[in-house]
């Protein structure tokens, strides 16, 4: 008994009930979903067959994938830019920028989505203004299409893209960049040959984070896509609430889970790489 007690950190006894609760509340439903996907409406893989039998399904998956990729590319690019500016400007400006970044975390996604509608809708501020000064005769269709979804999603994702990059960039030893300049490299050469490789771990985690979060987007595509841009999350909710095909919904959810796990696996491989990159100059 004593031997066991010595091996088990007493801290575990404190967290054990909560840990069990969390495991039960997470794993239970997930298992349930996986179970549903192969049993509803009848046992078998009929739900998964729909993946290549149904055109709608293929279109939805393709749309989701495309929007996620484009969102990720723009968000990470902008995020890299912002993180770079934050790391390399003066402390005070940095504090302002960090405050803006955090504020955008605090504002609800619904508020942020609807404010885009106010700004860029057919009767939104921008179209009104442009029409008012006569630049355009017809309102530009920013919203209720894929462009609208992309604008809204990129806007929401940029802060998420910034954080891993910020952490990565802040941990860099600036003497390494100085060494590059000292050895005769121009700013561009230093960026491509030293700075970018050293920020690759941040880029990878930022990319995966944004991509994974984008996969499950629901509110933004629903509101800004105006029903024309159907992504997986919205389709799942339709299956659940309208057509009551829980098996199909569960299959799509399982598919997304698989996608996310695959991403995380790739990410963990890169993280190992990043530890190889780090801890070098000491």
């Amino acid at each position, binding site marked *: 008994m004593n031997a066991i007690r010595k091996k088990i950190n007493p801290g575990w006894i404190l967290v054990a009930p909560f840990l069990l609760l969390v495991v039960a509340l997470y794993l239970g439903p997930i298992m349930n979903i996986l179970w549903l996907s192969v049993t509803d409406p009848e046992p078998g893989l009929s739900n998964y067959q729909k993946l290549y039998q149904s055109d709608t399904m293929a279109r939805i998956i393709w749309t989701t994938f495309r929007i996620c990729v484009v969102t990720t590319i723009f968000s990470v690019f902008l995020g890299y830019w912002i993180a770079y500016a934050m790391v390399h400007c003066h402390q005070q400006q940095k504090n302002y920028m960090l405050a803006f970044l955090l504020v955008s975390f605090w504002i609800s996604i619904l508020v942020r989505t609807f404010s885009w509608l106010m700004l860029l809708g057919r009767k939104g501020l921008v179209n009104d203004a442009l029409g008012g000064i006569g630049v355009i005769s017809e309102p530009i269709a920013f919203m209720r299409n894929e462009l609208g979804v992309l604008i809204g999603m990129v806007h929401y994702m940029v802060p998420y893209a910034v954080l891993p990059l910020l952490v990565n960039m802040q941990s860099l030893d600036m*003497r390494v960049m100085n060494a590059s300049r000292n050895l*005769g490299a121009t700013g561009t050469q230093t960026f491509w040959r030293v700075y970018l490789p050293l920020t690759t771990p941040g880029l990878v985690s930022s990319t995966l984070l944004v991509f994974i979060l984008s996969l499950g987007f629901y509110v933004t595509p629903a509101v800004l896509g105006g029903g024309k841009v159907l992504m997986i999350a919205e389709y799942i909710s339709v299956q659940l609430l309208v057509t009551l095909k829980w098996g199909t919904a569960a299959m799509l959810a399982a598919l997304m889970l698989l996608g996310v796990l695959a991403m995380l696996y790739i990410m963990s491989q890169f993280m190992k790489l990043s530890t*190889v990159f780090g*801890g070098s100059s000491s």
Partner: protein
Amino acid sequence: MSNSDHTQGSLQLTDLSKYFGEFCAVNKVSLEIQKGEFLTLLGPSGSGKTTLLMMIAGFVDITSGDIALDGTTIVDIPAEKRNFGMVFQGYALFPHMTVRDNIGYALSVRKRPAKEITERVDEMLELVQLQDFANRKPNQLSGGQQQRVALARALCFAPPVLLLDEPLGALDKKLRVEVQQQLKDIHKHVGTTFIYVTHDQEEALSMSDRIVIMRDGAIEQVGSPYDLYEHPATEFSASFLGKSNFLRRPDGLYALRPEKIDIRAAGNGGEPARLTGAIKSITYFGSMQRIIVSIPDGDELEVDIDSWRNQDPLHEGQQVDMLWQDIAAVKLAEG
């Protein structure tokens, strides 16, 4: 070896100053550095050594004054065009590149042909004895090996001047002595001007052609190791470079090195004693012994003697006479 273009490499610093806001990190430094010289900047931490080096390298803007290479001012030339080699504090190797790519970096960004780069890198690998490590990453090397990679990387493009910021600071004592010798050999071999920063006085004494003692951003004294050790000009110089006793006499303050004092049991006749006192402590260091003597006015004097000479052992509490030659006591300037 076909290294530096030997027509280049003398540096002239004129009234060089650097202020960070109100704070003066480097204060009116003027210095002539000969080409091929091994010059050491020695000073306590915070005395402005790194800042001065960074100004020469072009990473820190100068507040006032001038830096000239072979008589031509270089203050307007950006760091990447100055062509000075530099070994950074902590080495600052490129962690994602192999040793070979690290060393060849300067040539590769100058878009030299691959063959030339390979040959030159091989040459440098041989110079620093790292032939077997060419394909390792920096984090697979020991501290001493990283230091040599940093040196090879900085020398690869044959710069006229090499700046070294405490390159041995991270190494342990034994390794440091070994690397000091290698560094000196390399300096002799390549004939590049070395400007070497350290806060280790032994390192400065054993390696340099000349030493610049820095204090609070200003030059305290410049001279050969021998000059500075034998003729310190100020109390700071005398106590920072080696150890020193200070004697106040009617005509001023004198520095007296501990090993220049002879000590013997009191009242042994012979030459009259300059000072007498009682032994407070004796510390044994193997080859030498450090004896602290309390003298009548309440001060203490440190005396170092060779162990082999202490055949008739002195002991704590004993009364002793101390003698030294006139030239052993050096008169200091007082500010």
